[in-house]
């Protein structure tokens, strides 16, 4: 029997881990600052340089620590930017809507790539799919629509949430969560 496994980027915050499917991650670079955007949107920290391109950047650390009320994070920790590719996205409409968005906002950035900022408390892990659990029925669809797909437990005192990073980033960006400067 072949066990189905997948590689995940795992980010640790004490008793809470968050895993992201590595499928549409195409690279990473050390974070050394960002340029500002022409709008403010919670958790978006600007544009970063990736080779000759500029890419929109989402601070996943800030998002997760705020929504999960996590407080064991060192704000001075070194960070890395993980690069994702929208061309590999399972959400066919995000690519078109993002392209329209950057045109209307007049942002000079790649329409195909996005990035999210994490600290160095992260690693790539291979996880057996059968160990991941869907949320209880009463929560399942709600959390799926909000970018949280399931969970598992490392031990009795810790939990691992499986998150859909594209859903989180692009729902916040494209569903009106921005204020123009």
């Amino acid at each position, binding site marked *: 029997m072949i066990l189905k496994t997948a590689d995940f980027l795992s980010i640790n915050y004490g008793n809470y881990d968050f895993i992201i499917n590595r499928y549409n991650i195409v690279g990473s670079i050390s974070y050394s600052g960002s340029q500002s955007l022409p709008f403010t949107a919670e958790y978006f920290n600007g544009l970063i340089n990736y080779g000759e391109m500029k890419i929109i950047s989402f601070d996943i650390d800030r998002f997760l620590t705020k929504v999960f009320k996590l407080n064991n994070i060192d704000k001075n920790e070194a960070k890395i930017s993980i690069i994702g590719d929208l061309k590999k996205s399972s959400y066919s409409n995000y690519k078109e809507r993002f392209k329209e968005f950057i045109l209307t906002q007049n942002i000079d950035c790649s329409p195909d790539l996005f990035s999210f900022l994490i600290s160095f408390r992260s690693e790539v892990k291979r996880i057996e799919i059968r160990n991941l*659990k869907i949320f209880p029925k009463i929560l399942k669809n709600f959390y799926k629509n909000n970018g949280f797909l399931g969970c598992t437990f490392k031990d009795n005192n810790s939990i691992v949430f499986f998150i859909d990073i594209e859903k989180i980033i692009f729902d916040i960006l494209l569903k009106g969560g921005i204020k123009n400067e």
Partner: protein
Amino acid sequence: MNERNNINSLNNEEILKEIESKITELKKESVNDKKVKFIIFYIDDKLYAMPGNVVQEIIIDYPVFYLPFVPDYIRGLLNRHGEPYTVIDLKSLFTGSELDGKTFLVLRNKIDNIAFIISGIYKIENILEDNIHPLTSKNENMDYFEGSITIDEEEVFIVNIKNIIDRIANDIENS
């Protein structure tokens, strides 16, 4: 020897008759007097009841992992044999204040993976069906209950699981 050792002792024949009469009594009871098992539990100092057939187990002192974006009475998830269970705080649902409790009533998972956080268990009691009273009051909070029973001379409301789950599902949809 058939001698009696004292005036109150019974011979074997009499003992057997006594046993058989008890069995007959018990059988009559079970045919005519249907009983329902209830778990009587505390939320703070108030007693509530839940039908025993919906409760899988009672567990103590499990960590609850916080969940964002949902009403406060959904306290989070707990890990039961590797499966996530939604933890519901009935005190928070009824009154808006969080319960400081470490005991959980875990429901049978043919309903859903749900556990209620409570203060503690008072007792488990079999109640005659005839002694389960319908609700007479019609105020909003009574939607959470499906009747009442009398335990140690106190009226104890029976939690209506279905209505509670429906309320939660509705609140989550509107979150």
